[in-house]
């Protein structure tokens, strides 16, 4: 028996998010799927430590993240210092009119150190609050905030985005009620 009826279905429903997070962490689709598999097995084995009604997604993300770092420690030799070493070799085209190609964005994201990358993903894409992200990463809320802010600054620098209010031609203008064009 599962910890509650439908636990299996809820795990399955979380797989797309888990994969997206795993790809963001590991930068490798095959490795990401292995990570998700490990995380699901671990989650199943320790399902009694999950309290029904609490945030299942956050619980699963925590398990997956722990698995990622424990694998990373094991394969330490493979892991390069992503902060700096590769930057010189990478050619990222300058942003055109504030719009950045998605491939360039992905490459820029991969240049971030793990802690910054996971923080900006959890907050900016996975939809977690700073408090939830802090719990997932087992650190203080302020630490998450500063990692997100450093990640953002770094991405801007790599992608040569001059300002945060540079709207590209494809900007979602309907959402922007107050846009002011300063030529």
């Amino acid at each position, binding site marked *: *028996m599962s910890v509650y009826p439908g636990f*299996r279905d809820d795990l399955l429903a979380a797989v*797309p998010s888990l994969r997206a997070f795993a790809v963001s962490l590991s930068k490798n689709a095959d490795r990401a799927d292995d990570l998700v598999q490990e995380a699901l097995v671990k989650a199943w084995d320790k399902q009694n430590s999950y309290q029904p009604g609490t945030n299942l997604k956050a619980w699963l993300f925590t398990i997956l993240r722990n698995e990622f770092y424990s694998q990373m420690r094991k394969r330490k030799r493979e892991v390069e210092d992503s902060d700096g070493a590769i930057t010189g070799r990478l050619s990222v085209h300058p942003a055109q009119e504030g719009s*950045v190609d998605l491939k360039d964005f992905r490459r820029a*994201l991969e240049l971030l150190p793990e802690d910054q990358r996971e923080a900006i993903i959890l907050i900016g894409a996975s939809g977690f609050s700073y408090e939830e992200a802090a719990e997932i990463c087992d650190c203080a809320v302020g630490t998450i905030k500063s990692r997100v802010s450093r990640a953002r600054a770094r991405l801007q620098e790599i992608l040569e985005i001059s300002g945060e209010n540079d709207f*590209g031609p494809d900007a979602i203008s309907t959402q*922007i009620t107050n846009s002011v064009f300063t030529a």
Partner: protein
Amino acid sequence: MNYGKTNTRRSADKQGKENDPLGANSEIGRKLRQYYDDLIAEDIPDRFSDLLNQLERKNSADTAGNKD
């Protein structure tokens, strides 16, 4: 006595929204969500539902056997 404070609150709200560093006005924020949503939209390999079925079967077999 009303000192016309309503405007103050309104501008504070507005400021808070515009300061969201990864909000809708942010190029980085938009690209981040686009990157992530593309990943989420990918087809899920069957191995995951197979795995969960397997775990569930193993679990009910354990319970039925009640070896402990």
